[in-house]
């Protein structure tokens, strides 16, 4: 007889009526083919500079314009860290 050794916390995902029902409801109700609303979700990679004409881009080029001020970033990061209590 096979010894019962599966004592992991993953058991809560197995076989319970509530769990199975939730999965079924999920697949049936909310996880179907994405609707048109999803078409507007962000697409990576996002731009991190602008080209010489001012258009956002993520293609390196010597004529690009950088957009980040490192010292501003330092200041804002300290503000987020020290004022919001979130590392």
């Amino acid at each position, binding site marked *: 007889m096979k010894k019962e050794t599966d004592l992991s916390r993953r058991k809560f995902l197995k076989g319970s009526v509530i769990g199975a029902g939730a999965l079924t409801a999920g697949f049936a109700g909310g996880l179907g083919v994405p609707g048109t609303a999803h078409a*507007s*979700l*962000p*697409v*990576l*990679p*996002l*731009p*991190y*500079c*602008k080209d010489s004409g001012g*258009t*956002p881009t*993520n293609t*390196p*080029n*010597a004529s*690009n314009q*950088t*957009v*980040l*001020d*490192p*010292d*501003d*970033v*330092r*200041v*804002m*990061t*300290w*503000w*987020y*860290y*020290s*004022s*919001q209590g*979130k*590392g």
Partner: protein
Amino acid sequence: MQSVVSGLMQGFKAAFASDGTDWDFIPYDMLTYGGGGIGGWGTLCGIANGCPALCNLIGLHGALGSDILGHYSSTEWPPASLADIYWDDDPTYGPSSAGYSGIWSAAKTPIPDDEVLAKVIPYSPLCHISISKWCYAAGVNLGSPNPYGFTHKNDRCGKIAAEMAGYTAELINYYALNGASADPYAIPAATADCLTCHYTGSNPNIAPAQITKMDCAECHAVTPDAVHQGLRMIVESVWTADGSGTPKNTFTSGDPIQYKVRFHLLGAGFSFVKTADSKVKDSAAVKMLKLIKSDTLVAATYEWTFSDTIDPTDALGTAKVVMKLKCFDYQGGNLLDKQEMKYKFTIV
């Protein structure tokens, strides 16, 4: 983690505010999970985690992520940069500035650099090591308050966050113009030495395979005299090849076959290596033994090839070559180390 991501993200959101980019859809608080090395486990520092996470959004985590962790691990923290920005007379920043007056009044005051209790290089990107090492050097625990209304630990970590975010911004700006990292990370020599034997494809029985760019000595007592005292040789791989040396696993009668073994001899001036036995389903074992019995070797990486032909009398199916290498003291003839590795191939 949230602070570095939000600090950088705010820069991008402001820069592209009128451009209609997808930065508009990215929430500031999307990466709060990493503080304390995730759930207080002290694994990857949230700062070292957050900067590459932001780079992931712009597709540069592969180009810059390793350099960011390298900079974090090898820099003496906390830096003076944030304190300089706050306390110096630059009218652009600090409590007297017009543009940031609201920011500074809401934020804690950074400890002036000459009042910082300790500066330490973590030699690790792990929260556990980084914080523990600094707290010990500073003589404080994680809750010890400082005179400026913060804890010493949070002043230290907040300054690291600010500097790492600024450093990441500098890397991003440089990459935007040059398509390369401004500060490529070089693995320290001691770690690189460990990686010559312990790497992703190393022999799992002799030199456990691993992946890292971290400083090995932070967690392992890795002096050759201690851990590796009895190790004189590492058999890395055994394989078969066709007559020209191209790896090949399936042969037919009459095919040329090369039996190959790659191994490392450690140390110098003491080693003599021979095969004690090699078994193939023909007489190749005897030939191989004779070939290498008289070799005198020094510390180096060796790749030996033994050429033969698949004999018509060989049994079809799975065949096996077993390389048994023994390392002897060249002067005294004493056995120092012995290792073996097997490899299966097919005769059809």
